[in-house]
Every structure is written in C-alpha cells, then in structure tokens.
C-alpha cells in the first residue's frame, strides 16, 4: 500500500488557490497537483474559466432569478414574445431572464449524477473484466458491445417511451449508456497495471480481490478515468439538453435551458433571446468541460511519462 504514495493521487496536495508563492514547479519525485498542471495549459485555463462561470450561474441563478428580474420562473410577466423586461417574454409570457437564470441547475445536477453513475458502473465492470480476465472478461465485454450497438440517444428514447420522461429515467439511462464506454477505458488501464510488482505482492499476501481492486489498482488508473469523467460530463450535458430540446427530457413548467429552446424556437426571428441565451449557456458549458477534459488528458499523460 505504501507504493500508492509514490504515485500522484487526485486528492493529495493543497488546493490550487492560495499556493501562488514560490514553489518548485515540477519535481521528479512528486509532480505538481493535477489542477495546477491543468491550469498551466491554455486549454485548461479557458476550460476552467468557462466551466466555473456557467456552474456559478446555474447554482446562483435560481436564487437570483426573482430578485433580479422581479418575476419567478413560472410567473406570467406579460404577453407572449414581447421585448419587455431585460430579455423579453417567452411563449407563454413568462420572463425569459428569470427562466434563463433558473434553468441551469437541474441540467447540471442530472448531468453530474449521470456521469457519476456511468463512472461507478463502468469502472467496476472494467476493473473486474481487466483483472479477472478469461471468461468473465469476454462475457462482460460482449454485454458491453450490445449496449454499444445502440446510439446513446436511441436507447434513451426507448427507455423514455417505456418508463416516461422522469428525472431518474434520464439519469439512469444516460449513465448506463456511458458505462460500457468507460468500462473499456477502465479495462485497458487495469490491464496496464495488473502485472505490476505491487499488485503481485498483494496477491502473494492473499489480500482479498475486492481490496486489491480498490486499494492497489483503482488509485493507479485515476488518470485515464478523470479524462473520461470530463469527456462523459460533456456528453451527459449534451444528451440531457438534447432530450429536453426534443420535449422528452424535463417537462413543463420546469425552467430548463433545453426545454426553453424547444418552447421558444418558433419565435426565433422575432424574439431570439429565449433561444439564444440557453443555447449560448449550453455551448459555453460543454466547450468548457471538453477543454478541461483535454487539458486533464495532457496533464495526466505528462506525469505517467515522468514518473515511469
């Protein structure tokens, strides 16, 4: 177990803020904290700024909406599609600004939950397949291939037609469709470390399998998994927003960015804000998380080179 101390671990080290004083940038024994290495890249910086901006907006928005605009997200502010107020009114005459501020929280929450679910399931399946090998491996990977034969959105639609557009259905189906993709990455990463000496040593001491997976293997595959987390978060946001845009995700009268686009797009030419604000927010958020994922990929790739 002491070997895991030599490897960079995601939760070790100080938080990035307040550590701006002179520190050695990178040393051979202990690479800089992951966040710092991400921040050191152009992509990472832009990605963090964009993501933090939209996340802050989505978190604070529901509280600020009635204060800043004078209307709650479901309250009628005037006639439909009028340019009154800051950004006008929507298809039913509600305040676009208020609905925009309140519309990011659920999307963000569902996306994060779906990503976490996908990561947990994918990681467990992938690690077991990679570690056990043989028959277990082929059975799990064939099951993977079956889920992978459906485009993600089609499987989601199939689930929604059977179970209805409930929140838990969205989270579960998006999470479970991520799982096989994450499992492939986790399996490949597991195969990369499964023959290391510290795993062999643990096997020799008859450490239980679950413990080997959790304490020896998992800490050493967090690099590729954190890249997957960023990537899958981007796709979760896209998938859940797409379903809401299709009218099959969040249901009225919820204030939600995807749903707002669906509600207001018939008036795109006369009252564009009801569509453009949520489109821009979703675009900035997904671009931010994707840049972040790319920066994490570069950052983790560079340490594996240095520490090996």
């Amino acid at each position, binding site marked *: 177990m002491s070997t895991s101390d030599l490897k960079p671990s995601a939760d070790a080290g100080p938080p990035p803020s307040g550590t701006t004083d002179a520190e050695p940038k990178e040393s051979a024994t202990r690479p800089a904290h992951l966040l710092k290495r991400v921040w050191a890249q152009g*992509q990472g910086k832009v990605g963090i700024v964009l993501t933090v901006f939209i996340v802050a907006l989505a978190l604070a928005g529901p509280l600020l909406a009635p204060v800043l605009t004078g209307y709650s997200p479901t309250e009628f502010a005037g006639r439909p599609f009028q340019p009154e107020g800051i950004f006008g009114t929507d298809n039913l005459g509600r305040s676009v600004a208020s609905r925009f501020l309140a519309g990011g929280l659920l999307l963000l929450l569902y996306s994060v939950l779906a990503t976490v679910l996908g990561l947990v399931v994918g990681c467990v399946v992938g690690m077991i397949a990679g570690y056990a090998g043989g028959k277990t491996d082929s059975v799990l990977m*064939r099951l993977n*291939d*079956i889920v992978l*034969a*459906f*485009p*993600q*959105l*089609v*499987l989601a*639609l*199939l689930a*929604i*037609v*059977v*179970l209805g557009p409930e929140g838990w259905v969205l989270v579960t189906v998006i999470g479970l469709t991520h799982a096989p993709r994450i499992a492939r990455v986790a399996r490949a990463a597991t195969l990369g470390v499964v023959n290391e000496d510290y795993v062999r040593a643990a096997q020799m001491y008859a450490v239980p399998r679950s413990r080997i997976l959790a304490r020896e293997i998992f800490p050493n595959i967090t690099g590729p998994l954190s890249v997957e987390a960023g990537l899958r978060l*981007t796709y979760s*946001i*896209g*998938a859940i*927003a*797409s379903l809401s*845009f*299709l*009218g*099959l995700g969040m249901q009225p009268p919820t204030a939600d960015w995807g749903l707002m*686009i669906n509600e207001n*797009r018939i008036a*795109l*030419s006369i009252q*564009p804000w009801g*569509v*453009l604000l949520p*489109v821009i927010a*979703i*675009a900035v958020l*997904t*671009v931010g*998380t*994707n*840049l972040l994922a*790319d920066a994490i990929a570069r950052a983790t790739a560079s340490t594996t080179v240095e520490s090996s």
Partner: protein
Amino acid sequence: MIAKLILKRLLVSVFILLAVSVVVFAATLLLPGDPARAILGQQATEERIAALQAELNLDRSPVERYFLWLGGLFVGNFGTSSATGGPVTDLLGERITASLVLMLCAALIAVPVGLAIGIFSALHRGKRADQAVTWGTLTLAALPEFVIGIALVTLFATSVFRILPAVTMSPPGQQVWEIPTQLILPTLTLALVVIPYIIRMMRATMAEVMDSGFVEMARLKGVPERRVILRHAVPHAIGPVAQVVAIQLAWLAGGVVVVEYLFRYPGIGQALIDAVTYRDVQVVQAISIIIAAVYVVVNLLADIVGILANPKLRSAS
C-alpha cells in the same frame, strides 16, 4: 486467415444484432397497459379488443411473441402503429430514403473535408494553423448537435442572413430533395458534428506516419515531398482512420434524430420523436432496430476495411 477473421467478426455482429432485438423486444413487455386497448381507444368493446389481441398475438407467451416478431422483421413486417392503426412499414418507407439521403450528403462532405484538414494540420504541426484547427475541433466536438443547428439557423435563415430555409417543406407527393436548398442546413449541421473526430484522428495518425522510418527513408532517397505525402504517408494513415470515419458515419444513424426534429425533416428521426411522444411502441421498436442495424453493419464494414488495410495480415496470407 483474413477470411477467418472476417467470418468471426461477422458472427459477432449477428450475435449482437440478435441481442439488440431481445433488448428492443423486452421494451414492450415492460410497458404498462395493453397495446390492443391503446390502438382501439376508450370506446372499444371487449370482443374487438379480444379479436385484435389475437391478431397481434398478444394472447401468446412472450417467448412465442418474440419469435413471431423477429420472423416478421425478416419479411418486412414491423408491426402495427398504435397511432395510425396501419402497418409500420407504410409509415417508414419514404422516410428511410429521406434519412439515407441526408446521411449520405453529410458523409460526402464530412469525410473528404475532414481528411484534408487533418492532413493539412499534421503537415503544419505546432504552427498557428494547426493550433487553430485543434481549438476548432475541441470546440466543435463539445457542442451538442442542436446547438450547432440553431447557430446555423440563426446565421443563415432567421437573423443574420436570410438566404436558406430554416425548416423543410415537403408537400405530399414531392420528395424532399426536389428542393435542394432545404437540404443544405441539415447536411451542414450533421457534417459539422462528425468532422472534428475525423480531423483529429487523421491528424494524429498522419503525424505518427510522418515520423516513421519509411517516410524518412523516402525523403533521404530524394523522393519529392509531394510524392512522399501522397504515395508513402497517406496510404498508411488511411487504415486506422477508416475505422474512426466509419464509427462517425454509424453515429449519423442516431445523430439524424435531433437534426431532423430541428429542421422538421421528414425522415425516420422525426418519426421516432413523434412515436416516442405518442408512446407508439411498435414504431419506436422498428426505428430503434433499424438504427441499431445500420450502426452494427457500418461498424462491421469498418472492421473489415481495417482487417483488409492491415499490411501485417495481408502479407501473412
């Protein structure tokens, strides 16, 4: 050896398709309520419901129904739509062609442009143009398809320029491609969604190939750079890239759903959304299995291209 590999891959695909059909069929079993009652509505008499149940084989066991349904698929019988009361095939016939036209147009633009930009980027590695391409692909790859579509509509149809139609008109009896301008925006949206992946893969593979020994050898022999790239480097990069291209083309089968809905394009994607909205399960099943089949077949073709393009396997046989 090659034939054996291809045969093995073929069997895997058949197995996956069968498993997919089980998953899709299981969806009906989970569905609460009675399809016969849904088709006939509230005022149906018990005798009519019983008659329709017998006609739809609802009185048999699930296993029997699965095989009847599966057998039906092979002879083009996709079941009965509960929304129209007619066969699903009538609903889908023309829409499948319309969707295939859209996918084909998108592929014809995305593949050559993606490969060209990828090669260009690899040859200018580290320079400003290459960095611009990297940022561009990262941004485009992140955006959901409806965001790209709405951006294009705002730019070219409603707000900035008003030169292209924002929605598809399809008067009865007229095919969508008889008014070609309305294909431009949906095609462009789909192409922009798949292009970044093609560019990135082409760039990475090409960069690797350009660093390899045989390219250096060709250069040292004094082969002109143009010929080095076109004759020595590109053919070696195509194999791995073909797989990514194929995965992206397979993705189009699912990607058309959102894009067709956005542009009101009369293809299977829009039919799928309508069917989900009305909970028309047989139509959803039919379209899911069609899309999954396209997906599996295109992936199979990709792997076969990969096997055939692999010089190690070729020389072994």
